[in-house]
Each structure stands twice: as C-alpha cells, then as structure tokens.
C-alpha cells in the first residue's frame, strides 16, 4: 500500500505539472461556482436588502427560516433537485439531469439562503443613522437605499464569497445531480470521492490540495472583506 508520503509527493507532482485531469475538474468547479454565485447574488442581495430595510408582518419568522436554511444538508438539496429534474419529475422535459446547468440549479438553491441571510445581517449592521442622515440631506428613498447598500458593501461581498466557498467545497449536490460523469460533470469534489473509492490516493490528494488552495484563497478574501477592507 502507498504510504502517505508517497501519495503526497505524487500529488504535488500532479498539481505542479498541471495535470490535464486536475485542470479540467478545477475549471469545471470554478465555472459552476462562478455562475451559481452570480445568479444567487442577483436573487439574494435584493431580497436580503428588502428584508433588512422593510418592516412587514412575519419578518422574524422569515429571518429564522433563512438561518435554518443555512444549515440545510447538501445531499437533501441534491436529492430534491434530482427528483425535480429526473425524466419522471416535474421538470424532466428540461433534460438537465447529469448536466452542468443541472448542478448549477442545485447550487443556486443551496446558496441563495446564504447570500440572503448574510446580506440581511450586513445591512442591518449598518448604522440606522446612515439612512436617516441621507434622507435628511435630501436623498429620495431610492438614493438612501443605494447609500445604505454602499455602506454595507463589504458585508455583502463577504456573503457572496461565503456562498462561492460553499459551492466549491460541497459534494452532495454535485454528486447526486451531476452523477460524476467523466468529461461532463466531474468536479474536484466528486473526482476526489471517486479516486478515494478506487484507491487512487495520489490523484485524490492532488485534487484535495487544489480544493484546499481554492478554499484558502476564498477565506483570505472573506477575512479581508469581513474586516471592512481595512486590515
């Protein structure tokens, strides 16, 4: 059997030589993460700002629900999307099961609550006086909203980065909805699982290292923006 040291050495070699498989899975993973984060942000940021800025009945319940959805298991979302996209399912005619767009749908469902909930927190954290001051200085309500958004932009960006990190690192949706089909839907995480299953630890470890590098970069960005960009 391979020792850990051998596996690590082979893994580093695969990463440094830009192994074609590793690069392909990394590209696909990043594409999925970018597109789903973009879509989730377009939905989650406006909704989050609305929830934070408006008073409406049941607001507390909505926030509680959002916070609960933050912890929803990825396999549950994967299974839900699988049954929706299965040819027997309600969206079967879209023929998106085992495709990258199918995975993106699942990831968007997974991270919209993250973007929304973090945006609510970021906007609510912004000083209430900001809005009042803006209105007093003659801004209309739309302009005041824009100023509040600008003041909370670092928190909102942190929300987006957290969502991106979640997509890169999760395996439940990618495996169940994507099916780990080579050249079609194989991502860094599903390829890692498969290579562990096949006892191919060098490649699994190489993929793990790439994942780690991406997560680390994402976290450095996250820390930076959470600190309001001043650190």
């Amino acid at each position: 059997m391979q020792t850990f040291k051998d596996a690590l050495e082979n893994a580093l070699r695969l990463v440094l030589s830009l192994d074609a498989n590793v690069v392909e899975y990394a590209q696909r993973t990043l594409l999925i993460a970018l597109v789903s984060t973009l879509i989730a942000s377009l939905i989650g940021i406006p909704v989050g700002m609305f929830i934070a800025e408006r008073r409406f009945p049941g607001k507390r319940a909505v926030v509680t629900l959002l916070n609960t959805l933050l912890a929803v298991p990825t396999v549950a979302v994967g299974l839900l999307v699988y049954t929706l996209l299965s040819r027997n399912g309600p969206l079967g005619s879209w023929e998106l099961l085992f495709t990258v767009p199918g995975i993106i749908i699942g990831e968007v469902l997974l991270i919209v609550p993250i973007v929304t909930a973090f945006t609510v927190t970021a906007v609510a954290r912004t000083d209430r006086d900001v809005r009042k001051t803006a209105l007093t200085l003659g801004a209309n309500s739309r302009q005041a909203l824009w100023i509040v958004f600008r003041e909370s932009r670092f928190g909102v960006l942190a929300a987006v980065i957290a969502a991106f990190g979640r997509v890169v690192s999760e395996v439940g949706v990618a495996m169940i909805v994507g099916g780990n089909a080579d050249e079609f839907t194989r991502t860094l995480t599903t390829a890692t699982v498969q290579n562990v299953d096949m006892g191919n630890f060098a490649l699994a470890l190489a993929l793990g290292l790439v994942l780690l590098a991406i997560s680390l970069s994402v976290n450095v960005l996250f820390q930076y923006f959470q600190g309001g960009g001043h650190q």
Partner: protein
Amino acid sequence: MYRLALFTTALLFGASAAAQEVLTLATTTSTDNSGLLAAIHPDFERSTGIRVKVIAKGTGASLQLGRDGNADVVLVHARAKEDEFIEAGFGTMRRDVMANDFVVVGPSADPAGARFATSASGALERIVAADHLFLSRGDGSGTHLKEQQIWRHAAVPTKTDTRSFVAGGRPTQFTSTRPAKGRYISIGQGMGKTIIMATERQAYTLVDRGTYYAFLLADPPRTDLAVVCEGDRMLANPYGVIAVNPKTHPNVNFAAAKKYIEWITSARVQGMIGRFRIDGKTLFHPAHESSH
C-alpha cells in the same frame, strides 16, 4: 464580463450541450473501475461522433436509471433483474456483451481456511465458522445479488431484511439476505471502495475478477488480498447491454443506444474487450468470440 455573461447564457440554454450528440450509459462500477470503458469508448466516439456519458452505479441503481428514463442504455450484470426489467417494458434489444467471474478474496494467510472449501458457499460457511470479518457491497448491485444467492446456498442460518417503498407509484420491496451470525458489515458502496475497505480491515469479500485484477496489478498495488475461492459455476458473471425502451420513454436517445449495442457486440469491439489486459491478464471474455 461580457464573455462570461454570453458563456453563461449559452450554458444555461443548453447550447453547449447541443453541440455534440450524447449517449447516457448507466453501468456498474465494475466495468468503470476496471478501466475497460475508458479503453474502448474513444473508439465509439471516433466512429460515430457520439460522446458517451457514463454514470457508474451498481446494477440495481443502473436499472433504476433506465426505469426512470434517465439513461439511454444500460450495461449490467444480473440476469434475473435484467429479464424483469425487459418484461416490465423498460428495456429492449438485450445482448450478451462479455463475461468474467467472481472470486472470493481475503487475507493472504487465509485465517478462515476458505481455500479448502470445494464451493463458493462452502468458502462463506468457513468464514462464518471462523468468525472472520466479511464485507458486503450491500448496495443492490449485481455483485451484492450474487453474494446473497451464495448465502442462500450456504449451510448457515440467514436472515432476510425486507424494506418496502414505492417506486413508480407501485409498492416495491428491497430484500437483503445476510448470515444470521458472524462478523458481517454491509457498507452500501461501490466495488472499488469495498476492495479498499476489505484491504484495510483484512476482511473477506466477493469481487468480480476484473476489478480485483485492476486493483491487484496497479502500480503500486491497491490491495494485498488473495483469491481464496474461484471456479465455482455459481461464480459466473455475464454482462448484458440493454437499450431503454423508447415505447416507455419516448425521450431517450434510442438511435444512439442502438448504435452503441451494435458497436459493442461487433466483432471488432469484442476483440478489443478480449485484448483489454492489465499486466498481461485478461479481465473480460467477449460473449461473441470470433472463430479465429
């Protein structure tokens, strides 16, 4: 940013997917994990221009993908389940593709003395008698079905768990038979994972010869388990290919499935299957042996 948006749009509307015809093949982990499909599929793509999307699950899960119309063609190994699948109207055009056989593997020192058994069921009896660990796929795969068949022939008390669920609006049952005593772990994983785990735990398990050789002869070897029982007629393992019936699922790519079946049973590809070797060892025997 503009290019990204454009690319996103193309992606979401499936424009990129329409660029090339795709055939979805649901197959067992044994054909995929052994490296056979990766070796022969480039030829299919070259000769037909159709790309094969391989979804590797157990036989049970692969047939379910066919039942739901989520695959165009299935390549599996559990004859009784295949016949059920066809009789229920989900499959058509079944052909034999190839065969290999199952072997019982275990620690090379063979602490249970399974080597001395004269049959597969005898080998499992000895493993239970020695109270040695046995790992089961436990995933409804062809290998798991074969394992249960052997347990039912063995002279050890067995117990059968039945779980009822609804599939396609009809009540269905999933049964699994296992020895009533002895150390037995059902892991619900693919063939590769099962060998890896059996190697780590130095347990006995049932494995198809193709996957076993692929792991044994890898460089570096991924298992040090040895064959303790082989050659019993009960251990034969024939693979069949079945197109998903377009009458049941009009959306499946039946034309491509037909081409795939004709291709994989052609003399040329049958020859390729027979010549597929790891370290000089043949893993699969083609069903349609040419006369020369």
